[in-house]
């Protein structure tokens, strides 16, 4: 139980004050008319917290100070417990783990909790679901809100029945009175009341060692709907009289419309054509008609020459301008780099490159838009419902309250759905057609018109002494980003910087952001430095590493993998790598086998140890780690976007290879539980070590030191040939 003083701070009182909601203020009466009578608990950011923390400041961006409710929950007379949060479900099973947290504190089964997520009309403002923030931020807010609700209910029962609160017991969502065997449901206690509690951020949470539901593998809450086809993704939704939308896509990025003849499309029965500047789209009663209408449009486009994949790394390096160090991008400088390099027995200078890759969510972007009396409602799969609400309000020059964005549980995102392109396109069509319009992007559209994980160039120069001390670390990332750029190992002299560049392709977030690229270069370099110093790669790392959480995962992974126990079989190799990102600590060991004739590289097995504080749902954590490793395999081995003159050359799943069953090695996962530490997110960090671990295993097997991601899109044959010529 939580300390007594925080309980008394939340004693329920009737308030006549207005309630702040999603950017607007509604009255108490209206609030309960909407939710039904009962008890509502709102979690409020404290002003001081908001001002003190830059992270929180961005989440209340542009909002007035009364609008800092992070989440709320409501207990109705019929015992329904409803949680309202702006976080969204994209497959990370956050719907389940947040429900677990609330169920825990209210001592009810998980099934008793209804989660209302990502509906801008119903939930408090939220910046979005990214950066592995849902578990640490929203999880703890909801836990506190649930505790406050529980304590308020106990207080009410205590007053009503004139029993000391300490003599009341809670079990299975009921309050047990000490006299006789009388049990009161929460609904009975809140009946006829309209109570609002506002709780500040300083409420205490239940200690991890007292968790009963958190920390257990509660299955996906609505799992049955996903295996019987009943769940409606946006692309499955239909409204009465709905039309199907289709957009005329330019032949290349940045193309502008010179001339267009819409006659052919307009002549087709039932077709609405919308033309605004370079935007041309149609809405039709069915998809074949919409496709036919697009095909009937004659358009002339003006295109311009643009860099191709072949020259991208030179281009990004040339176009780089400025330096970002410090803050979120880590890095900065310390010591004296020149002296550090001079003090080294050996130095190692390398340039690493990473290609653009695509997220390839299995559900391509989709939106269903409807205008009613000037109000726009859009169902769309986005990680930022409020961001899309804002974009739509600006695009149509209407107040935000006139835009409702609803995000049903969506067919994955991986950082690739921060935007609302399909929402805007569907809304434009629906406005002119005056009917609801659904727009589902094709796979080729998703490959082309979404955004990519940035390509980048990373230059590293490092010095090492023969005793294994790293004397200098000079690390520069061009274009891909600053995440994961910090040097986790102890180096006295270092200079680390991220240099933004001018990306010819639309680029954005991806699982783990730039930490995948930066930690690839960092851990490849560490591997080769260990070789220079004639040290075992694990021993070399531990010698230079103080961070205890990272040390722990290295040791756990190595132990489970059997690191150092035996030599790899012929043409096999072992590699190790690790890193930390977004509060998660990860280390991966990999075994690869190389076919010297065909050059094929097969990943035989991987062992990953991962730690993200106190574990909330072990089974779903296992699934997130697994997913990160499998997704990481694709970017590590073969995924790359090919492009030329503003065109994507491989926009199909036949041409762009993603990991399949046959690519999946034996994956061993070691969860390191730290009940003494706050829970961090787990969707991103476990991806960072897989690529360098495989790369280092290839070095071990063959001596070939690859410096590109993907490592072996064409296999290793050419590299082996080159190496054998050099050795002759």
């Amino acid at each position, binding site marked *: 139980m939580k300390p007594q003083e925080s309980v008394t701070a939340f004693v329920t009182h009737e308030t006549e004050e207005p309630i702040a909601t999603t950017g607007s203020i509604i009255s108490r009466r209206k609030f309960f008319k909407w939710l039904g009578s009962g008890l509502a608990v709102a979690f409020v950011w404290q002003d001081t917290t908001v001002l003190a923390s830059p992270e929180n400041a961005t989440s209340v961006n542009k909002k007035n100070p009364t609008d800092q409710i992070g989440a709320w929950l409501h207990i109705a007379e019929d015992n329904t417990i409803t949680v309202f949060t702006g976080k969204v479900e*994209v*497959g*990370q*099973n956050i719907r389940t783990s947040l429900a677990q947290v609330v169920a825990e504190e209210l001592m009810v089964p998980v099934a008793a909790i209804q989660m209302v997520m990502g509906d801008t009309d119903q939930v408090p403002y939220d910046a979005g679901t990214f950066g592995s923030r849902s578990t640490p931020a929203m999880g703890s807010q909801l836990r506190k809100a649930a505790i406050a609700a529980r304590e308020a209910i106990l207080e009410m029962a205590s007053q009503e029945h004139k029993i000391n609160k300490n003599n009341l017991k809670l079990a299975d969502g009921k309050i047990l009175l000490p006299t006789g065997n009388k049990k009161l449901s929460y609904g009975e206690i809140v009946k006829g009341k309209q109570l609002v509690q506002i709780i500040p951020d300083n409420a205490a949470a239940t200690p991890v060692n007292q968790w009963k539901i958190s920390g257990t*593998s509660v*299955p*996906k809450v609505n*799992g*049955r709907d*996903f*295996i*019987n*086809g*009943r*769940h*409606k*993704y946006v*692309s*499955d939704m*239909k409204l009465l009289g709905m039309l*199907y939308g289709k957009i005329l896509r330019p032949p290349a990025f940045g193309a502008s419309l010179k001339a267009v003849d819409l006659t052919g499309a307009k002549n087709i029965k039932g077709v609405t054509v919308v033309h605004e500047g370079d935007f041309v789209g149609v809405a039709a009663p*069915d*998809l*074949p008609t919409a496709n036919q209408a697009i095909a009937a449009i004659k358009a002339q486009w003006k295109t311009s020459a643009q860099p191709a994949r072949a020259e991208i790394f030179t281009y990004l390096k040339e176009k780089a301008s400025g330096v970002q160090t410090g803050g979120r991008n880590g890095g900065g400088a310390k010591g004296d780099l020149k002296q550090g390099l001079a003090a080294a027995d050996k130095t190692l200078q390398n340039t690493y490159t990473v290609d653009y890759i695509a997220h*390839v*969510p*299995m*559900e*391509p972007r989709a939106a269903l838009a409807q205008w009613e009396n000037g109000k726009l409602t859009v169902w769309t799969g986005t990680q930022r419902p409020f961001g899309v609400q804002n974009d739509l309000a600006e695009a149509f020059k209407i107040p935000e309250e006139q835009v409702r964005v609803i995000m049903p*549980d*969506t*067919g*994955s995102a*991986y950082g690739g759905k921060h935007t609302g392109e399909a929402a805007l396109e569907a809304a434009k069509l629906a406005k002119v057609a005056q009917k609801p319009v659904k727009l*589902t992007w*094709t*796979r080729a559209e998703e490959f082309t018109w979404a955004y990519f994980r940035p390509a980048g160039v990373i230059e590293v120069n490092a010095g090492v002494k023969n005793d294994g001390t790293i004397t200098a670390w000079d690390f520069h990332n061009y274009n891909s980003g600053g995440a994961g750029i910090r040097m986790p190992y102890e180096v006295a002299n270092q200079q680390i910087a991220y240099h933004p560049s001018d990306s010819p392709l639309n680029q954005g977030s991806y699982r783990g952001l730039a930490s995948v690229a930066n930690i690839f270069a960092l851990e490849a370099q560490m591997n080769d430095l260990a070789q220079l110093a004639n040290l075992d790669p694990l021993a070399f790392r531990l010698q230079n590493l103080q961070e205890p959480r990272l040390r722990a995962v290295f040791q756990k992974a190595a132990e489970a993998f059997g690191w150092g126990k035996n030599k790899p079989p012929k043409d096999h190799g072992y590699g190790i790598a690790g890193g930390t990102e977004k509060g998660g600590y990860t280390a991966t060991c990999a075994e690869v086998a190389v076919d010297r004739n065909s050059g094929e590289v097969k990943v035989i097995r991987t062992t990953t140890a991962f730690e993200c504080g106190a574990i909330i749902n072990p*089974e*779903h954590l296992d*699934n*997130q780690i*697994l*997913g*990160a*490793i*499998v*997704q990481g395999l694709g970017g590590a081995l073969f995924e790359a976007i090919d492009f030329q003159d503003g065109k994507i050359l491989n926009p*199909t*799943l*036949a041409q762009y290879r*993603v*990991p*399949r*069953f*046959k690519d*999946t090695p034996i*994956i061993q996962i070691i969860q390191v539980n730290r009940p003494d530490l706050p829970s961090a997110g787990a969707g991103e960090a476990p991806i960072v070590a897989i690529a360098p671990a495989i790369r280092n295993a290839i070095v071990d097997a063959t001596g070939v030191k690859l410096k590109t991601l993907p490592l072996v899109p064409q296999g290793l044959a050419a590299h082996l040939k080159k190496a054998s010529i050099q050795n002759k």
Partner: protein
Amino acid sequence: MELLVNGSKRSSKASPETSLLSVLRDEFDLTGTKYGCGEGQCGACTVLLDGKAVRSCRTPINTLQGKSITTIEGLEVKGKLHPVQEAYLKVDVFQCGYCASGMVMSTVALLNQNPKPTESQIIDFMNGNICRCGTYPRIVTAIKEAASKA
């Protein structure tokens, strides 16, 4: 033309070359079958044709005369899940679940032709289905679980 879907005769007004996927989803409102790529590469649109797995996105309806089509909606009978669905639920396989229908249908097809597949037979058969969330090992576990109950 007439189609036999989940044991019922359904009439489609779509032109003969229309894909089974769009007829199922847009005309019959059987949206459990998903669009993933339109090129038969991802398996999200997998349905059964006389018990065998086909990619409905690459199957024009004019090839389906007299054939029995089963979609994900046809597996559950009167609220009772198919043993393959039970196995997937028990293993708690999925993350986003978008590939789920295709995975389940491919599994039913596999176990129809080979009730006790080895692990490598499972991987061979399922290789045409993509799960971008990367749940492959959990799917293999679920298939073994379903096979053990058969």
